[in-house]
């Protein structure tokens, strides 16, 4: 039997684990190799590794003993010899390295302290001068001040031969002259850059108010807070996340919204500039940019801030209420954690419980005394410098689409309900089942523009519905390899790179696209929904198709009511979307769907932009 010797195995294993070289170093350390560094971490890790190495050897010896390897002793002697050689070599190299190894480039150190007075102005002037100097040395058209150049203008390049093409080395090597040039620029820059924090992050006592804690509001709030500004985030629900936390996955990546929300919640938890108020709505706005007075109303949670999320209150009762999180598709305890990813992770009680026996049971169950049955709605006033409206959207009321018989069959649902059906934490634990009888659907229809692009309902295009339906087709096809999906559409609006997603779904032979806006839906004799309409392509066939499940791709309406009695209401368009406006007196901005029908990527984009606009407003710009 060709058993590799102990040493052979050892070395091979070392290589497998990429530990060959480090073992050399460990041996070096074992044999008294001196470490010139005083870094405690190094010593710690070296000691640790020596110990690891010993364990390793012991283990190997044990293994070989068990395997009955007679040559073990010889091999070990050979190993020792090799190890000593390696150690000597390693030691040599280490000595060499120790000389070479310099600490990583130190950042430019703060130079001589500038005078205290007028620091701010001095900074601004210097920075301008430096910029102008830089520009003039480039022969560029510097705008603004023409003050004399400071020392910050770096020596001009001589345009000589050292204008070499980039070489192939990982980091292009600069000539000594070039390095000197760079270093001079760095040194000159130090003067202008150290104090800049005061200019850029200038103190303001004003706070930014973000109304709405969905993905747009959360993004706007945390982006502004991480830039150093004070932010208050209001959310009407008892938890953040808005509409997206109730989605199963996002298009086009099919990733779960809670993934990005988790990151955002972590950012919120670790940020001291941001204050979150849940169950709170805005009831009045007055004042002007820089000094808005906002009246707020906070609904009673009946569980106070100290709730630690233990759940004993919920365990104490059996009474249930409609589960709003699942759009009423199932029931939830009357005192509950709204869902598994709820942030803040605090319980909330339905007002229906007040005055019933359950109320006392709940109060009793909370041994730490966080139940407050006397809680009432509270009013509050906020003084803020800017307001970001991130009030999001409401699904267009499916009942208004009478011709689609939404209320006549449990198996005619809308797209937000479809998300809950597909969600692991939804009413069916993520299994797409017919609501009528809990059976698996085999034939599913999706009807696009259910309410959108329709002057009787929502005249505009809601942007997300086509892509959501493509995503729903993917949900179905993932769960049911035999199921067929028909998508009735006017235009598939897969904007920019979303068209790739469309292509991906189109490749699936069991997903059919029918260019037609169905006329109406009836309920067949067997109870299945029947879709009636005319195919607009080809021979204009009239169809009457029966389905197990019909999903109406309903659109988005802005949640902020078009009519408010706010003294200083944000500017709105005819549909109620908030308009940013170009007026420099405006301190109210839109983030996400409050400002227009957007998908999540556009919502977070507009939210990030709104954070900047709000920062400018509180800075007085």
């Amino acid at each position: 039997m060709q058993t590799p010797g102990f040493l052979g195995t050892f070395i091979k294993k070392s290589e497998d684990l990429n530990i060959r070289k480090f073992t050399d170093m460990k041996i070096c350390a074992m044999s008294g190799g001196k470490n010139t560094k005083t870094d405690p971490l190094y010593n710690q890790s070296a000691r640790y590794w020596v110990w690891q190495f010993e364990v390793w050897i012991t283990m190997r010896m044990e293994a070989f003993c068990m395997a009955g390897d007679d040559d073990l002793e010889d091999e070990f002697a050979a190993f020792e010899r090799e190890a000593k050689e390696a150690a000597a070599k390693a030691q040599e190299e280490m000595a060499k390295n120790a000389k070479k190894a310099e600490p990583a480039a130190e950042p430019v150190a703060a130079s001589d302290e500038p005078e205290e007075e007028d620091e701010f102005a001095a900074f601004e002037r210097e920075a301008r001068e430096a910029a102008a100097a830089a520009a003039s040395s480039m022969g560029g058209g510097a705008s603004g001040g023409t003050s004399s150049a400071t020392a910050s203008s770096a020596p001009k390049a001589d345009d000589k031969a050292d204008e070499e093409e980039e070489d192939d080395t990982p980091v292009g090597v600069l000539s000594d002259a070039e390095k000197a040039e760079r270093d001079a620029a760095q040194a000159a820059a130090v003067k202008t850059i150290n104090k800049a924090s005061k200019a850029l992050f200038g103190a303001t006592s004003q706070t930014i108010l973000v109304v709405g804690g969905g993905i747009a509001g959360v993004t706007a709030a945390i982006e502004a807070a991480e830039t150093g500004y004070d932010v208050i985030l209001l959310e009407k629900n008892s938890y953040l996340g808005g509409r997206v936390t109730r989605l199963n996955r996002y298009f086009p990546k099919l990733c779960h919204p809670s993934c990005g929300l988790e990151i955002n919640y972590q950012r919120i938890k670790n940020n001291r500039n941001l204050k979150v108020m849940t169950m709170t709505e805005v009831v009045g706005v007055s004042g002007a940019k820089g000094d808005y007075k906002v009246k707020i109303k906070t609904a009673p949670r009946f569980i106070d801030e100290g709730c630690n999320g233990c759940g004993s209150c919920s365990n104490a009762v059996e009474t249930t209420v409609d589960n709003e999180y699942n759009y009423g598709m199932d029931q939830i305890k009357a005192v509950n954690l709204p869902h598994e990813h709820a942030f803040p992770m605090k319980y909330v009680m339905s007002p229906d419980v007040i005055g019933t026996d359950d109320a006392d049971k709940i109060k009793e169950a909370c041994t730490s005394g966080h139940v407050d049955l006397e809680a009432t709605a509270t009013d509050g006033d906020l003084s803020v410098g800017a307001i970001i409206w991130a009030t999001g959207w409401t699904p267009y009321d499916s009942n208004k689409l009478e011709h689609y018989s939404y209320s006549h069959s449990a198996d005619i649902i809308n797209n937000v309900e479809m998300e809950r059906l597909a969600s692991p934490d939804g009413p069916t634990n993520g299994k797409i089942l017919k609501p009528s009888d809990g059976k698996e659907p085999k034939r599913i229809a999706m009807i696009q523009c259910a309410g959108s692009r329709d002057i009787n309902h929502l005249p505009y295009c809601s942007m997300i519905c086509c892509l959501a339906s493509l995503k729903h087709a993917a949900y179905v096809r993932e769960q049911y390899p035999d199921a067929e999906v028909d998508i009735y559409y006017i235009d598939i609006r897969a904007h920019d790179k979303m068209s790739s997603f469309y292509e991906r779904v189109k490749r699936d032979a069991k997903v059919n696209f029918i260019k037609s806006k169905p006329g109406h839906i009836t309920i067949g004799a067997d109870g299945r929904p029947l879709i009636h309409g005319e195919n607009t392509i080809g021979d204009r066939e009239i169809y009457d198709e029966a389905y197990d499940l019909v999903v109406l791709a309903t659109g988005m309406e802005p949640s902020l009511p078009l009519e408010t009695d706010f003294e200083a209401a944000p500017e709105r368009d005819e549909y109620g979307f908030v308009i940013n406006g170009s007026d420099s007196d405006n301190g109210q901005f839109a983030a996400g769907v409050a400002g227009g029908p957007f998908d999540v990527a556009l919502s977070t984009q507009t939210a990030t932009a709104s954070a900047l606009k709000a920062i400018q407003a509180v800075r007085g710009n």
Partner: protein
Amino acid sequence: MSEEVFEHKPAAYLCGGCGIKDALDMDALETAITGGMMVSNVKQSDAFCSGKGLETIKSDMKSGDVNQAIVAGCSPRVMVQEFNEVGGQVFRANMREQVIWQQPANNEDTQALATDNMRMAITQARKSEPPQAHWDGATSLKLLVVGGGITGLTAAREASKTGAQVVIVEKTDKLGGWAGKWSKFIPENAPYREPEDNPVPALIAEVENDDNITVLFDTIVDRTEGGPGEFSCRLKNGSGTNWDIYGAVVLATGWRPYTSEDQKKFGIGETDGVVTDIEMEEKLSSGDLKDVKNIIFIIPGDSDRMVYSSGVSDKVAIKQALQMTQADPDVMAYIIHEDFRSHGLAEEFYRHAQEKGVIFQRGEVKSISSDRTVTVDDELLGLEIPMSGIDLVVVSTGMVPNSTNIDLEATERGADQLKSDINPVAPIFTVNGTQVDEDLAETAADAEAEETIPEGGPLLNLQYRQGPHVPVLANGFADSHYICFPYETRRSGIYTAGPVRRAMTASEAINDAQGAVLKAIQAMRQANEAKAVHPRAGDLSFPEFGLDICTKCRRCTVECPFGAIDEDPETDYPVVNPTRCRRCGTCMGACPVSTISFKNYNPAQVSDMVAAGTEECPPDKPRILVLACENDAYPAMDMAGINRLEASPYMRVIPVRCLGSVTLLWVKTALEKGYDGIMLLGCKSGDDYQCHFVKGSGIAQERMSKVGDTLRSMMMEEERVQVNEIAIADSERVTQILNNFGKQIEDIGLNPFKGF
């Protein structure tokens, strides 16, 4: 480099609230802590997260007797704000979500799990020091904007309004870019119906009169070193080069027109009266359209580049058609299209055009004769219709992102970098890795082969180990891969905006520029305070390299997903750029000699935690090590606890910053210390990757694929080490996976090295 020696003064706080004291023997736990774990300062309370309990920790910290609080209670994901305020390092032993909510009360195994969790947390504290800022010196707060089109101009103006100094680098000799040439704009303002005036001239004037903004014409960025807060850029123009230091970069290099081969067949440049929509803009500006009475706009959709910009092309066609009919009501304008993509509020524009008599025809253009008779295969009628008497045919162009500088030669070194690492037409997989349709894989492979690699040289010429380019997605768009985080490029402090990121209208680019500026200013601020940027925003820890045992193997420099580590051109040693670093620890996981460490997260620490998890394991009990991504898998496990799903009591769970930070040392330690199985839980990798650190999860899988040999040579079964992809919503699935793994390990039998 005066490094004070940190003296560890730990204290353990055992929270009995939330039912913990009813399920665990708290006094036994305390005895174990004061005994074997050698922490003498132990306190118990019914709630350390609030009131007196929290005050106790605060006053202990204040007294100076304690600087590390090890709190046994709820998950580290909750009560974060509360414990952030205690005034010292806090370590959390998860006793609630992952112990009492998932295990039977007052049970030997449950107690053992709780004790081990505490021992691991104490070990974590012992090998942890409070992170300190890597510098307190100067950083630059000047913004470099590359590109003087509408995106760059907006970025500069907005940054200036927010207090920053700005330098705009413009490749040509004037500002405004493409948008500056447009006769009118697509409406972005209510009521979204009429073409709007071009705002660019006013914007240029604003920028030119802004003292905070400097414009450099005919200039490119020749070289970029450093990172956020300290980008050293060498700018180059006809009269020479100049170095300056910038805090962040907004890349607003825009786009260039694309005309496909198919479009050329329409006779662009050959047939008289057939023009592109860009040429049409010039005609509209100059008013050179008096004799045009019948005009056809063709929106072809033949390639990705065309389709990607269709949302723009369609609106441009409406705008131009409306401009024509407004100028002369007798003009007949036709728009030939496939799916018409006037999404969102642009539907108003579309409807308005219909009301104004613009004819929209769904179909494909079959041919255009020399007299401009356009034959359309009308999809709705199912007929080929020849349309004659046409005075002008306008064909839409696509938008190619300027993610490179086409005026420069492509560099060999950057070639690989320009391949998108995401295939946009990859088959649709589920989170569970099951493929919808096998045929899709083949078609996807075909599509991949057709990928268009951007031409030209680098825009910033980044002196990064990982190449000079800003990484791109499919078709060269320098966009974020994340839906939630649209500005996250893989180069910290460099934010892309406008059509270089995705095809968008000029009006949309204005909003996009504002977002990018916010991120740029934020990055400058974080760098100024030595803090990490997204997603570990505010983290002060950073990787430290023990160069004396570094073998220059280059794994860290190669694997860093953000290109934060370079190689010293002279010594070959790794050089970390702390402000580029996102603190994921992938370098730490890569380092074969484990000489990369964070003050509060390092190889020795987790290795000791691994050991601590099985220190008191009876020889007949299984132990399974779970290294779980703290962003997704660990929360999923918490949520399993919230749902009270029963889990195996033999799991010892350690959250990791990213699966990419997992080093083989930990796996080895685990096997030596008698763990019977090791489960690594990370995020989805591959084309639709969900790893917040881009590659961490994939890299971990790659690393672990090599563990099999090692296991075999240790005479162990390969199945003992497994990697799984877990999404955050998988609370039920993760429990199943772990429980099944537990069963599998039971079948294989216990680790033969157990009890050494």
